[in-house]
């Protein structure tokens, strides 16, 4: 057992911090639903940050740390699936990587665009194809979800089958979900903490009212739990750990999705404050992999048979 960051990990996280610095806040006057940056995406990919999982001395925990860190940015990046799932399926699959569940093809697919790799996971195994224009319903520009999303209109006639069990991909997907959620939760909490410490009513900062302090403190506990469970699940590779991490992550996401907007009052309904960039991503993640109930059942299967 060793839970401190090693030197490599500290260095990688520091690199990412400096690389992502220009993207650490929302550009002035930008009120988009979903902020993205191809430049940042390219830089991360070119520098190999999304491939650390297959580097032997780095591995999945480092990949989860990278994903957590990147998810804190106001910019939406396809990092979780690429960093924590792709190398298991085929490290050369072109990005972005879109994971979809067989049988749930009608859901909004994050980062779907022509050229994206779509991986369909389910009873028929793990199969992929490259998304082309005619398989994609026009991207939804005005989705609230703060990710670029689009819909699949169907599957192509031929898909590439991959030699990996669907369960293994689902396990890694749960880790990816938990790691991304951890970062989003962390950034949203930090942003809310700042807001409530500055916003005054009744002559004092709102953060001095205990009714609000306790709600914030409880989400700190949840956020910390999701962070560590995601890393642990990445580290152990155990399906039960992955399901529990994803379950706790989706539970936490559901909890803050309401609270964080509520506690900002009217400001929480605007696009002026970046809160929605984290919370609406969290909301969409609560629907992933069948939602909390499915993670709970997967965990029960893995633990008690």
């Amino acid at each position, binding site marked *: *057992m*060793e*839970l*401190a*960051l*090693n030197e490599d*990990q500290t260095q990688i996280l520091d690199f990412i911090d400096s690389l992502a610095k220009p993207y650490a806040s929302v550009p002035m006057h930008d009120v988009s639903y979903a902020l993205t940056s191809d430049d940042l995406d390219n830089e991360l990919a070119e520098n190999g940050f999304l491939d650390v999982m297959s580097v032997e001395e780095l591995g999945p*925990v480092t990949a989860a740390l990278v994903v957590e860190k990147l998810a804190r940015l106001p910019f939406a990046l396809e990092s979780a699936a690429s960093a924590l799932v792709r190398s298991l399926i085929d490290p050369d699959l072109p990005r972005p990587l879109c994971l979809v569940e067989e049988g749930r093809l009608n859901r909004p697919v994050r980062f779907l665009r022509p050229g994206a790799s779509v991986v369909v996971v389910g009873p028929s195994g793990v199969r992929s194809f490259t998304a082309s224009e005619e398989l994609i319903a026009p991207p939804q520009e005005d989705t609230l979800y703060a990710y670029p999303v689009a819909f699949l209109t169907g599957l192509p006639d031929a898909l590439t089958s991959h030699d990996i069990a669907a369960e293994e991909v689902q396990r890694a997907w749960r880790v990816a979900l938990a790691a991304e959620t951890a970062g989003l939760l962390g950034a949203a*909490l930090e942003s809310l*903490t700042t807001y*409530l*410490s500055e916003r005054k009513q009744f002559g*004092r*900062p709102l*953060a*001095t*009212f*205990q009714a609000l*302090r*306790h709600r*914030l*403190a*409880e989400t*700190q*506990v*949840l956020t*910390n*739990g*999701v962070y*560590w*469970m995601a*890393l*642990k699940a990445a*580290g*152990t590779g155990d399906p*039960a*750990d992955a*399901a*529990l*991490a994803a*379950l*706790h992550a989706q*539970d936490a996401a559901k909890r803050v999705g309401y609270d964080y907007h509520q506690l900002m009052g009217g400001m929480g309904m605007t696009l002026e404050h970046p809160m929605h960039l984290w919370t609406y991503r969290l909301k969409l993640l609560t629907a992933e992999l069948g939602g909390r*109930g499915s*993670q*709970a*059942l997967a*965990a*029960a*299967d893995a*633990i*008690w048979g």
Partner: protein
Amino acid sequence: MDFAWSDEQQAFRQKLRDFLADNLPDDWEKFSEHGPASPALTAFAREFCGKLAENGMLFPHWPKELGGEGLGPWEQQILAEEMWSAGEPRGGQYMNVNWIGPTLDRYGTPEQKAQYLKPITDGATLWCQGFSEPDAGSDLASLRTRAELVDSNYVINGQKIWTSYAGLADTCFLLTRTSDDRKKGITILLVPMDTPGITVRQIPSLVGEGDIHEVFFDDVTVPEGARFGEEGQAWEIIAYSLRNERLGVPRFSLARAALDRAVAMLQERGEFSGEIVRAEAARCAAACDASQIACYALVQKRVDGEQIGAESSSARYAVVQCERAVCEFVIEYVPEALAGASPYLKMHHQRGIVAGVASGAAEIQLNIIASDVLELPREPR
């Protein structure tokens, strides 16, 4: 980062399990219903802790010169997990290991160390913690039990409450007021419980026989050398003690073991196939895991020699959530457990329900997280 136990750590855990298997009586589960502070368990614990000490398993994480084996904080954690999930056969002596021993070692005078440390590392003595008073619970700094220095003796008058183990303890780690300067006016005295003037009254409770007490002090007189630290230093010392205490009880281990036990009972009678019960059980397991890993992050700090601060309140609060989830699960799905069907689950329930109150209420942990982890501006006083 590495989330796996080393071979040595696994071997250490196995050694503890073997020891427990060899040294707990066959009817241990029924026996442990007596509760950690009961006369029966206290007597058993004296013998059991003596054997642990002989085998180097009472203070394995202490340096050799103090009677330990020189192992580290992870072994201390493994020890606590194995003991607690077995129903804490060390009885109240677990407090010696968690915080009384370390606090004595750090702040005691040479005479105090010479007097108290050996019985502790031999597993031969029981302590109690005299902090709370009827009007000083969460607001501990308002405590009023007076100690007055009269001719090189302290004369103590006042009352403590909720004092666990007081009925059978040898010594009390007592907080007294020596001046009116709130936190700076509190002083620790180490008081033998057989000193004349001490009256102990048991409080009947939900948490097991003999656990909580009222303790009255009427002109109780102890020599000046019973003072622990300087006058007014108590607050600094107990901040250190409580940090150790909060991390000391791995409630998630027993909660998780209780959950597994409840699930096994349900499986046995074919009642663990419904999606609702399975999902609820999984949610309990997630709460156990979340609190365990939050505590492990603190153990790592200990390994690295870092101070553990307000994060311990965050881990504590996670632990309270896990205890609550499992206690409620058991009652909803295996209600007969608390009515005789499972001594183990009843034992867990009685330990579990105090998680949010004993050693600092849950809401106080939230206050600490808000102020010192999130660093929110303070509430007006």
